[in-house]
């Protein structure tokens, strides 16, 4: 079961896409590890490493880098929120 990954705002623009889907690689069990895995693809993907104060959510709950990720999850990465 794949995981669905969403990107928003400046990060979405930097990546040129709002979503991705991938099979969770062996050994990737946290949000932080997933982010590093994606950033290691290089080129535009390095935005995942360079975005200041990158935030993340798993299944639409804001979480920290240590949060667990498992197949079937919806994971999102985005810059700090600026609504209101």
């Amino acid at each position, binding site marked *: 079961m794949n995981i669905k990954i969403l990107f928003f*705002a400046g990060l979405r623009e930097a990546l040129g896409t709002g979503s991705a889907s991938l099979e969770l690689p062996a050994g990737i069990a946290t949000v932080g590890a997933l982010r590093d895995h994606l950033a290691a693809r290089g080129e535009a993907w390095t935005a995942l490493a360079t975005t200041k*104060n990158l935030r993340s959510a798993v299944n*639409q709950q*804001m979480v920290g880098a240590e949060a667990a990720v498992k197949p079937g999850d919806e994971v999102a990465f*985005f810059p700090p*929120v*600026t*609504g*209101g």
Partner: protein
Amino acid sequence: MSVSVQEADFDAGAEIAALSAGRDDVGAVASFTGLVRADKQADAAAAARVGADAPPAVQAMTLEHYPGMTEKALEAIVDEARGRWDLYGVRVIHRVGRLVPGDRIVFVAVASAHRGEAFAACEFIMDYLKTRAPFWKKEETPQGGRWVDARESDDHAAGRWDAGRD
């Protein structure tokens, strides 16, 4: 329905009135309306004091959000407020899409028996909304599009509630 994410404008007076309609136990309705600013005079003045350039005037902005999570996050913030204070009603509206200076962008109203609870809960919801609800603003300026940076003061404002202020 206490939370709405919508492109449409809203009527603050109708929303405030709805919170006490048909009941006689509401003594206080505190509300907040947020609007899009163009000139950012206060920010420009602050920048001038530290010798920085004033930010360019905003011509319009577009609100992006995370559909699904947005509503959940706002409902969680409302639930948190209901757990802290004795509230009779809460209404949160956040607009998305393209807005121009002077447009209303966010509305929060809280009904309670007493004003202290209503004010505290309304300010709490705004503070938490600013840091926990997945909205992002992109401003259009004469120099082009610009994603708004998160303000440290918003994290500070939300953080003060964790210390048990109230």
